[in-house]
């Protein structure tokens, strides 16, 4: 009898405990700091226009009951928007500009996210004869010497920064840019269209190029590292939260949840599986067996060196 009673009490107790646990679990989800909130992400047009973001954001929104508002801008503009506290998190692809952003204190907790590469694309008739080379500096020199029309982004984007880096490596100074060098002043898609309509060459990120290839008549002349091209054409994407100590209005909790989600295993799979016309556009690099401490700090940071 007493044993039965004890069992009964234990049973009631455990039911009650489960119930309370259920309630508190439910309540803590209700009261969760991020449910129902909105994350504002500024990102580059290259991630925006390829459609990858929609693929990644929808499951995140479902899981946390939040909304993500993504704004596609050039890397420079995306960082500037974050600098004035109008964004919670930034996803960009120009390490030098990201480092500047971190060092000025506006960004915290940077993570490597994924990479793809740049390709030199252009008209099929290839007036400067650069097709098939793996020496992108030489290719750029040839374009300058042949005075073939080169359409530049000219918008302080990550691609523009990379293009200037290659011209610099090729030893072509900006004082040598003649009439053949056009400042297109637009997003990657616009520049590809402009090159298709009235230019010879441009530098494009592989993702945007692949997603537009069926609509334009441009060919790849110099491949990036994904297709065994030079490392100079590597295009790594990083994600940075805006520092809540500088802008106390930013949604830091949600930004970190987003960074955690994007750099997790589930997102790695989604990024890997995201393809346009059968080709993988981005290669995740957030999760790896080898630690990479450099991703958290500006490149060449003394404190992080071994």
């Amino acid at each position: 009898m007493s044993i039965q009673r004890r069992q009964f009490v234990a049973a009631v107790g455990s039911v009650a405990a489960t119930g309370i646990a259920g309630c508190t679990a439910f309540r803590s989800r209700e009261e969760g700091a991020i449910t129902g909130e909105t994350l504002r992400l500024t990102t580059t047009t290259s991630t925006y226009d390829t459609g990858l973001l929609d693929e990644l954001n929808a499951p995140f929104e479902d899981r946390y009951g939040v909304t993500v508002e993504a704004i596609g801008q050039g890397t420079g503009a995306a960082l500037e928007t974050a600098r004035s506290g109008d964004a919670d998190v930034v996803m960009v692809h120009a390490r030098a500009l990201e480092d500047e952003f971190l060092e000025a204190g506006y960004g915290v907790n940077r993570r490597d996210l994924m990479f793809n590469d740049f390709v030199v694309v252009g008209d099929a008739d290839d007036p400067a004869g650069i097709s098939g080379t793996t020496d992108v500096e030489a290719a750029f020199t040839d374009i300058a010497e042949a005075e073939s029309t080169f359409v530049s982004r000219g918008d302080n984007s990550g691609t523009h920064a990379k293009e200037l880096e290659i011209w610099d490596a090729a030893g072509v100074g900006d004082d040598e840019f003649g009439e053949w060098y056009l400042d297109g002043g637009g997003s990657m898609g616009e520049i590809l269209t402009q090159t298709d309509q009235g230019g010879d060459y441009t530098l494009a990120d592989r993702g945007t190029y692949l997603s537009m290839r069926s609509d334009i008549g441009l060919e790849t002349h110099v491949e990036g590292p994904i297709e065994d091209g030079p490392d100079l054409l590597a295009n790594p994407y990083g994600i940075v939260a805006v520092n809540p100590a500088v802008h106390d209005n930013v949604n830091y909790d949600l930004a970190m949840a987003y960074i955690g989600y994007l750099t997790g295993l589930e997102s790695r799979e989604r990024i890997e599986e995201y393809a346009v016309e059968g080709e993988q556009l981005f290669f995740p690099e957030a999760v790896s067996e080898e630690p990479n401490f450099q991703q958290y700090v500006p490149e060449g940071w003394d404190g992080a060196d071994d």
Partner: protein
Amino acid sequence: MVLELTTGAPLVVDFPFEWHYIRSIIAVSLYVSLVAVALSTLCSLPVALLIGFTEFRGKTLLTSLINTGMGFPSVVVGLVVLFAVSNQGPLGSFDLVFTPEAMILSQFVLAAPVIAGVSLAAVSSVEQNVRDAAYAMGGTRTDVAFVTIKEARYGIATAVLAGFGRAISEVGSVLIVGGNIARSDGTSVTRTLTTAIQLEARQGRFETAMLLGAILLVLVLAVNAIVVRLGNDGGGRYR
């Protein structure tokens, strides 16, 4: 998922959008433009009437200023509004940046001078003898004003339509202050028809951009037709 996308891409020439997507873009376009035009009309019409009915020093200067405002470059207005509503700006605490309300603000700035300028021209062009006649028949100042407004109603309707046309067809400022945001489920937050067209065009998808352009034209045509219809009905009733 991947397969859908890969096979979906070349079929872009059919109807490429979810109906939900189109509907929410149209909704945002109309919401922003109509609210902006309504607010502009509320502010501009009294100003136009006041200027039209009174004589004062500097009237010509003020009129020129309003007419200059009709030509404000929308990108500049967008920039100024962005600075104002940005977190660091004077209106930063209202948290307006990248919201439809910020777009309303910039379209208000763009549409208000147009509505004021065209209404002012309409009111001023009501012939003096009409006003004199109303006055001579013993009308008070208010009566004279009503007669003038009635005579100028087509001009005023044109002013409101011109303001609406400016607002809904404008892309520069709404892109800057709105950010062209659509959620991942295709619900527009700050994406309007014009910014959606810009987005399609920058990706080289000219056919779909054209399609959206056609929708925009139909929309403007519909709003014009409704306003003209209302104007005619009103005329019939009061004549």
